[in-house]
């Protein structure tokens, strides 16, 4: 052991047992303080009311575990690797085995495990594995001598290269995957529904990306435009018998005009203040929808919203008034999933339109002006850019796409009520944009899959679902603080075949210049 520690220059020569004990005891005390109420006391339904039961045994276990795990962490830090790897590794293997047996046979194994709940045990198992891996990585680093320290710039350049390559190949690959997705063998109705939901959020994310990612206007009330689009279509369809495709542009225009309506009062605001006002705007729209009973049917919502048709051919078993249906026209067997597949392609096309529009507009003066406005408003003004118009167009266009997505939502659900348009929706859409990396198109897709798709697929985890959701968010922000795929692609390239110079090799590019 002494050999390995001596070779790591950063590690202490020995273990400071006093400091170790102090740190571990402190951690254990904090855990004890927190867990006395959160774990130690539990309200439970008994006949005749609620009763408080105590679970002090669990508190004791948690506290001891906190002490031991912290001690192991400190040991790793001070250069003791092998014992930690061995102990943690063995425990992890044992726990994984027990949990696996529990899961496979359904036989209760909690007698051999510290907790009664398999998920909590699983979390502990993960912690042990993490500790062992960490120690192993440190050990490897110490054997191979200190790793070459990468400077911040090199790291950034490396990340940028990765993101660029990833975006270049992932874009077409993802699109191809999305196109054949409904016909993949494992895709059943549930997976189709999840995909439609994810695509809706991808589209909303791309729309919000215009406002937040490109123009840098933090909008916390984006769901308001989504609601306007949904209600525009729902009201037109139920009151005037208009079809989805006729209403779609109208819903976009309605949402865009609400975008302008919000844009005007917030023109002078920036940052936090803008966020607060947009948050208020989102709530105002929801409260109006809730209370204007005669118009919106209030909390009862609007039901019976018609489904979209395929060029006039409805996707139903039997057309209402003797008309022809989709499956009759194409001589196919009627299947209920046809409709979902159709909806899937509708949202795919809508989302792709949003994406293409954004990619195209970024290369036009107005798109570049949005980005410039985000970087420096004063500089923009001194270059003759009208910040008022620029911001308003960003709001309006972003809102328009939310309107499209909203009418799609209405037609998919067949029923809408103000409940679907709460602040949490805005927050989730914003999270998709921020975690994806502001301004990154492909990042939005990745983040939407992680934030929307995975929680749906892991519904079986029940109450731990949101815990995992929060954990994923924290991890993403720790690893990639600027977002998963944060990298700004230049809008103009002088060298054909993708840009040559990124920080690092611009000298070569300068010599090979035009």
């Amino acid at each position, binding site marked *: 052991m002494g050999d390995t520690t001596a070779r790591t220059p950063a590690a202490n020569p020995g273990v400071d047992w006093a400091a170790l004990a102090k740190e571990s005891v402190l951690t254990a005390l904090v855990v004890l303080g927190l867990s006395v109420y959160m774990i130690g006391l539990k309200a439970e339904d008994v006949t005749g009311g609620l009763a408080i039961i105590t679970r002090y045994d669990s508190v004791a276990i948690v506290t001891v575990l906190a002490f031991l795990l912290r001690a192991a962490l400190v040991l790793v830090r001070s250069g003791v690797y092998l014992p930690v790897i061995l102990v943690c590794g063995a425990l992890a293997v044992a726990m994984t085995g027990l949990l696996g047996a529990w899961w496979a046979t359904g036989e209760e194994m909690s007698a051999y495990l510290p907790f009664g709940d398999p998920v909590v045990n699983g979390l502990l198992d993960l912690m042990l594995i993490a500790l062992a891996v960490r120690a192993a990585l440190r050990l490897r680093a110490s054997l191979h001598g200190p790793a070459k320290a990468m400077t911040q710039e090199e790291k950034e350049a490396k990340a940028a290269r990765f993101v660029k390559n990833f975006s270049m190949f992932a874009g077409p690959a993802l699109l191809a995957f999305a196109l054949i997705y409904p016909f993949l063998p494992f895709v059943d109705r549930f997976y189709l529904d999840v995909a439609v939901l994810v695509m809706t959020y991808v589209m909303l994310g791309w729309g919000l990306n215009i406002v937040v990612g490109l123009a840098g206007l933090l909008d916390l009330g984006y769901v308001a435009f989504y609601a306007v689009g949904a209600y525009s279509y729902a009201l037109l369809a139920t009151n005037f018998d208009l079809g989805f495709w006729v209403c779609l542009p109208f819903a976009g225009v309605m949402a865009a005009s609400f975008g302008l309506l919000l844009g005007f009062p917030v023109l002078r605001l920036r940052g936090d203040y803008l966020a607060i006002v947009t948050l208020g705007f989102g709530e105002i729209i929801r409260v109006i929808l809730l209370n204007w009973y005669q118009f919106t049917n209030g909390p009862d919502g609007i039901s019976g919203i018609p489904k979209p048709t395929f060029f006039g051919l409805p996707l139903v078993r039997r057309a209402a008034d003797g008309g022809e249906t989709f499956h009759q026209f194409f001589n196919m067997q009627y299947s209920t999933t046809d409709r979902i597949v159709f909806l899937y392609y509708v949202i795919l096309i809508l989302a792709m339109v949003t994406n293409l529009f954004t990619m195209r507009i970024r290369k036009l003066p107005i798109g570049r002006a949005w*980005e*410039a406005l985000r970087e420096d408003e004063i500089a923009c*003004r001194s270059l003759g850019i009208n910040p008022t118009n620029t911001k308003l167009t960003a709001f309006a266009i972003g809102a328009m796409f939310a309107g499209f997505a909203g009418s799609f939502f209405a037609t998919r659900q067949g029923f809408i009520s103000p409940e679907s348009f709460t602040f949490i929706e805005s927050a989730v859409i914003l999270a998709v944009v921020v975690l994806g990396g502001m301004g990154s198109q492909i990042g939005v897709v990745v983040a939407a899959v992680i934030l929307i798709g995975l929680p749906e697929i892991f519904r079986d985890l029940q109450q731990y679902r949101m815990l995992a959701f929060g954990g994923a968010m924290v991890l993403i922000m720790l690893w990639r603080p600027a977002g998963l795929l944060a990298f700004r692609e230049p809008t103009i390239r*002088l060298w054909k075949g993708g840009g040559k110079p990124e920080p690092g090799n611009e000298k070569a590019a300068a010599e090979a210049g035009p």
Partner: protein
Amino acid sequence: MLSVSGVHTFYGNIEALRGVDVEVAEREIVTLIGANGAGKSTLLMTICGNPRATTGTITLNGEDITQRPTFEIVRMGVAQSPEGRRIFPRMTVEENLRMGAVTADPQYYDEDRARVFDLFPRLKERVEQRGGTLSGGEQQMLAIARALMSRPRLLLLDEPSLGLAPMVVKQIFEVIREINESQKMTVFLVEQNAFHALRLAHRGYVMVNGQITLTGSGDELLANPEVRAAYLEGGH
């Protein structure tokens, strides 16, 4: 060309400009020198309409621009290279130049771009590099180049020598002279580097506490004992 008369500008209760009169004629280089906090940058920004003059008038080619919004003033042929350069750090040099050209007719873009690359060959080498990764001198060159891309008739420069090495300062001032001579550009230059600015300029103004205290040709001011004592001795 540009005429500022009796301009007062306030920041809240603080009177930053106390009745300033400045004239800039066609094809002239006029410099405004003064100490920190004298109000030099404020005057330049007031000309651009942000902040607005409380009283007084600013005219450009006889047209009153005192109450015009900034972007309109820029579209009338005034370009500003603002204090602290304010290039777009995450955009490439090329994109920065495009941003400068938003108000210009796109058909001149290639021509204008070639012209600023003639003036600043360094920028041509760096054309795909991000603004934020340029050196200070290169950023200043980019700020001036970006301002030139809007095809202005009046160029406002706010402390182009700020924080630059003496060699680079010399280069930049050389370019300003060239722009003025070969492109017949009118230049209004705000500077703390009084020696270089006065040598370059046809005429100069000295500003103290928001008021113009002295005016004259560049050489006159260079020879003026007050100016020498306040701005030139002990340096350069």
